[in-house]
């Protein structure tokens, strides 16, 4: 089941692996996305640490890893056409996949209901 961060990334675990991206809310706030820098395949990412960069027309923003792990696949399509993240942030606009280092980290993330409550300003 998909989990979310307070910094507006999503992660969808599938066994020992997980797919990572940014939420629809995040792409809406960023507006026109024109550049994406992804981690390299094989690189390690740490929960809560900057792992990718998204640039709108105006500025660059860090993306934080929702979980620790090793990058096993990146989505080359969003490097070629960053607007894919605006069009389909939680589907075809995924960022990368990791081998999960510590599944217990998932417990600290938000479920869908809590994340949307957070967006509406109803939860901490």
């Amino acid at each position, binding site marked *: 089941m998909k989990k979310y961060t307070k910094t507006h990334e999503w992660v969808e675990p599938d066994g020992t692996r997980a797919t990572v991206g940014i939420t629809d809310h995040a792409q809406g706030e960023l507006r026109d996305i024109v550049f994406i820098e992804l981690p390299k395949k094989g690189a390690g990412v740490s929960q809560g640490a900057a792992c990718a960069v998204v640039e709108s*027309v105006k500025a660059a923003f860090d993306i934080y890893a929702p979980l620790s792990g090793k990058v096993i696949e990146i989505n080359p399509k969003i490097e070629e056409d960053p607007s894919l993240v605006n069009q389909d942030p939680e589907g075809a606009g995924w960022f990368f996949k990791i081998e999960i280092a510590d599944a217990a980290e998932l417990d600290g993330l938000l479920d869908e209901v809590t994340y949307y409550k957070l967006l509406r300003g109803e939860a901490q």
Partner: protein
Amino acid sequence: MNTEAHKTVLYDEHVALGAHMVEFHGSLMPMEYAGIIAEHTKVRNDCGIFDVSHMGELEVRGEGAFRFLQHAITNDLSKSYPGKALYSPLCNEQGGIVDDIIVYCFSRDHYLLVVNSANRQKDFAWLQGQAALFDGVVCNDISDTTALIAVQGPRAEGILGSLLTGDISSVPRYTFRTVSCRGIEVMAARTGYTGEDGFELFIAVSEAALLWRALLAGGASPCGLGARDTLRLEACYPLYGNELTDETTPLEACLSWAVSLEKGEFVGGEVLRRQSREGMSRKLVGFEVVDRGIARSGYPVSNGDGKVIGAVTSGTFGPHVKKNIGLAYVGRQHSAVGSRIFIQIRNSATAARVVARPFYRTEALLYKK
């Protein structure tokens, strides 16, 4: 900002159009409505309108007005005549740029200066200080009673023309004419900051919303500061605070075409003449990023050996040219077109190439001198 942000007279119009509002040098301004890229494209292909009422308007009057302004600006005011708009830097004694302005001439003793919003108070104080040295000069800040709407793009003349009594098709570039729109007096100047043909419309604040709505109804698209910045950068127009500062000279900023070293004494003239004679140590260049990455203001520029040779002043993805472009000051020996330079983007020295400026030029402007 410690004081409440200023709202232009069109603030409610922007909010009603769903604009994303931001504070810009003390004014609440629309950053974008439909999106920067969509708005940028509208201006390149169709027609966009911008609320630029945050700009400052300073009036200079009196029998000494010509002599005073000729001394204050770097361009040659004797090229001007009633109905003429003249772009010019305004320099300090050290040749650094106080502001870049447009001087609209009504007569030899009546001018209107359009200045950058961030510099309005600084410019007014500076002008008053300079004006005190001349007889018969009065300066007034009329920014609060003047609204300014830019209508830009290939369809600007058609859309604006259909709303007006009075012909604008024969108004040459960098001139202005007073026309009437539904009974409202409009000073229409064929100027702009987008690299497209178009007009900037000066009107009383009380009439601004009416004109704004008429332009929208005529088919123009509202555009914000975001697109204004990407459009001006593709056209290589400098931005005060980025390319132009109190520490950069117009010669370094490639504005020598707006500096008359022969016209007689003017503020900063001595330093600029010396710099012209002796040469500059640095120069503003346009570059394209060759590797992947977007350059941003403040990023260091280095040569192939890792030695810092300058800094980026503006950088973006150019929505029309579809390249990552920017402007930077670099050491003179690296300023030739074709020079290979490196932009420090986060942790990597990213290859870039000095290219001819501007990045974008429309034929429409070549025919309208």
